[in-house]
């Protein structure tokens, strides 16, 4: 290590002290704001203090970690201990969707929502067993680096960059979108402005220090997000059941929910057809789609470059493996708490809203109704009078809230829990800071993955292999800025499909990367032609299925034999294809708009288009296998190289000049 990082050893040795001090400081800050609230400081001011204080801390870490060294910029000097890399990966992994959206999904779908909980955790087994440690031994800076070395150069590199870009760009746009939503809701600024404020926060963390800065800020962000996520439900659990372990006590809430579901149907507050029992499987997803989502999210985890590259930063292969285990442990802390949020909220809604006289509704509803996030009797519940009027307008309404009268946006579940529990505003501010940390940290990791692929793989490896260090890092930073602004600009237009695309990113990465990565490590006989053909075939089929079902469903029905998806309980088709295809309005709607009844409602074998990786990945494996066997075996050097990455001992295979 050169002089620039002298003192780095001290820093690594004192990580425990530094982050312990930081966590203590953060808690003291929360307590201080709580005291300020008691003295009558307005909520708006508390919200600003939370957001700007945490952003400032991330930015300071980002600036302190600036670097002029290539290996520091791309892989944090490969000095991040397993435990801390696990924390950073946790923050990298858990996005705004996990923090804010997951509990809401579980609230709405009950058991079926668990497909996401399982899918977004179990994939780490594949990361550790099949892929991660071997890439660490190889010594790459990026995933395309490995593809290029193993599969004969820049063509494979180019396809890998393409896969990386298509999987990561939509994903990062969704994160910046999430940042904008949270910042605008808690700071009251306009959404478009909030997007660019969030962007500034993201850039301050990553631009000067690359991977090194992102690593140390992600650890800080993890601490904020996990404290913010767990605090409200721990308090809630203690209040209701006297035990501060919500993950244990929500079993009682589930029993009460199940009992209440029966009562509601008997009392005519819900119809048996509309009620989805909380604990019963396969009311929303058919078993094929349920297990398909689990599989695609898991395999996608092991194929997403922004996750794989986190394991390039550990000091050894051994620590890379330990680090995957720590990563999942830190992710688990949040994911096994999400069902508790969902259960407590559902119990509150079922016992204190459904069945209650409309005139007796509790006031917390209306703050969210004003934002258009809670509807009663089909209208935004802006205040009590509006709700009463809306229900009166429905013929034969009994005057008490029925299940079908109540609609809640899934984001509200986590964000409203502090208020529902009657906690002071400071806890709400804490939750907002946590959501912001989740969105920022994921956006940082993704942006870095994209910009690194463009600067390292496309610019340095393909266009200008003789570029001096200074120019390489300059280009890397410029590209980071360009990609970030591009994503923020796209996010500020609120594109409708962007949230669905996060799910697609997993399938795309899985279809394009997974077969080539696994075969490249586990099968010496895999050849360049085979791998390139397999990547193109798998990725191509996945894209084809996505694009056809979403944007050209008419062609899917007419030319590719796609049929309507069905309701898993009744077996009835979700869309009447014959009728829709006969309507000239929908037939001419090409590419299909979001309103088109056919879009994403058709497919092969009743498969939702999020599962396109389930088609693409097996094809990828098959093509690599068949085409490889048709050609000559890889050279002895290549086979020796594969042997080399299978053994942890020794230098990394790829030696980058610094």
């Amino acid at each position: 290590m050169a002089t620039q990082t002298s003192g780095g050893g001290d820093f690594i040795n004192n990580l425990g002290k530094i982050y312990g001090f930081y966590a203590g400081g953060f808690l003291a800050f929360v307590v201080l704001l709580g005291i300020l609230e008691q003295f009558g400081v307005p909520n708006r001011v508390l919200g600003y203090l939370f957001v700007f204080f945490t952003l400032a801390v991330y930015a300071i870490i980002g600036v302190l970690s600036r670097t002029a060294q290539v290996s520091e910029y791309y892989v944090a000097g490969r000095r991040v201990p397993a435990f801390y890399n696990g924390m950073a990966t946790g923050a990298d992994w858990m996005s705004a969707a996990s923090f804010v959206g997951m509990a809401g999904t579980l609230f709405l779908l009950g058991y079926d929502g668990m497909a996401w909980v399982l899918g977004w955790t179990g994939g780490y087994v594949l990361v550790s067993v099949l892929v991660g440690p071997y890439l660490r031994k190889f010594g790459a800076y990026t995933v395309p680096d490995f593809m290029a070395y193993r599969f004969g150069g820049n063509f494979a590199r180019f396809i890998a960059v393409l896969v990386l870009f298509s999987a990561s760009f939509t994903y990062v746009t969704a994160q910046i979108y999430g940042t904008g939503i949270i910042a605008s809701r808690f700071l009251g600024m306009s959404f478009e402005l909030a997007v660019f404020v969030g962007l500034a926060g993201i850039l301050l963390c990553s631009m000067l220090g690359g991977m090194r800065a992102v690593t140390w800020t992600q650890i800080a962000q993890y601490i904020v997000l996990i404290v913010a996520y767990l605090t409200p439900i721990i308090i809630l659990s203690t209040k209701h059941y006297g035990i501060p372990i919500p993950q244990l006590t929500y079993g009682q809430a589930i029993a009460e929910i199940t009992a209440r579901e029966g009562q509601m149907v008997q009392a005519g507050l819900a119809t048996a057809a509309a009620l989805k029992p909380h604990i019963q499987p396969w009311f929303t997803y058919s078993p094929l789609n349920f297990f398909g989502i689990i599989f695609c999210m898991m395999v996608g985890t092991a194929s997403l470059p922004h996750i794989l590259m986190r394991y390039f930063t550990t000091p050894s292969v051994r620590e890379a493996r330990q680090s995957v285990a720590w990563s999942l442990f830190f992710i688990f802390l949040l994911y096994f708490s999400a069902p508790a949020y969902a259960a407590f909220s559902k119990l509150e809604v079922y016992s204190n809203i459904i069945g209650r006289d409309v005139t007796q509704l509790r006031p917390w509803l209306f703050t969210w109704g004003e934002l258009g996030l809670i509807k009663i009797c089909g209208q935004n519940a802006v205040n009590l009078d509006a709700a009463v009027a809306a229900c009166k307008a429905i013929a034969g309404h009994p005057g008490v809230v029925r299940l079908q009268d109540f609609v809640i946006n899934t984001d509200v579940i986590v964000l409203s829990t502090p208020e529902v529990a009657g906690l002071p505003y400071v806890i709400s501010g804490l939750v907002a800071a946590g959501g912001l940390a989740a969105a920022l940290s994921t956006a940082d990791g993704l942006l870095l993955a994209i910009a690194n692929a463009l600067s390292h793989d496309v610019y340095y490896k393909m266009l200008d292999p003789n570029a001096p260090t200074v120019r390489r890092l300059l280009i890397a930073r410029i590209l980071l800025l360009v990609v970030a602004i591009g994503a923020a600009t796209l996010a500020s237009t609120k594109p409708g499909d962007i949230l669905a695309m996060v799910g697609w990113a997993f399938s795309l990465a899985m279809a394009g990367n997974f077969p080539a990565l696994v075969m490249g490590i586990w099968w010496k006989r895999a050849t360049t032609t085979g791998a390139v053909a397999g990547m193109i075939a798998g990725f191509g089929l996945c894209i084809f299925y996505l694009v056809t079902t979403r944007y050209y469903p008419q062609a899917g029905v007419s030319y590719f034999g796609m049929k309507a998806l069905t309701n898993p309980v009744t077996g009835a088709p979700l869309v009447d294809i014959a009728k829709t295809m006969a309507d000239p309005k929908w037939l001419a709607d090409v590419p299909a708009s979001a309103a088109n009844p056919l879009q994403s409602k058709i497919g092969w074998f009743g498969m939702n288009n999020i599962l396109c990786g389930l088609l693409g990945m097996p094809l990828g494996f098959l093509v690599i296998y068949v085409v490889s066997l048709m050609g000559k075996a890889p050279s002895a050097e290549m086979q020796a190289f594969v042997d080399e990455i299978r053994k942890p001992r020794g230098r990394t295979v790829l030696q980058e000049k610094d």
Partner: protein
Amino acid sequence: MATSSNDEAHWKKTTNLMWIHLGIWVFFGYIVHMFAPALNKIIILGFPLGFYMAAQGSLIAFVVALFVFAKQQDAIDREFGVAEDD
């Protein structure tokens, strides 16, 4: 640099371990959840077992499996002398 018999034995053991952990992954990721309706009839602390496995049980199994795997693979690497220096 041909593959030595030591390397081959190391890789054979590594491959076996890989299959064992993929088996655990398939069991806790998929098989146990296929029986969710039946497992839901067993209720512990209010949790129907089928629901519990998806919400917490499998997740705990994955975390434990990963720590165990890291240990086991390291033991294999040490046995064949291909582990990194401590």
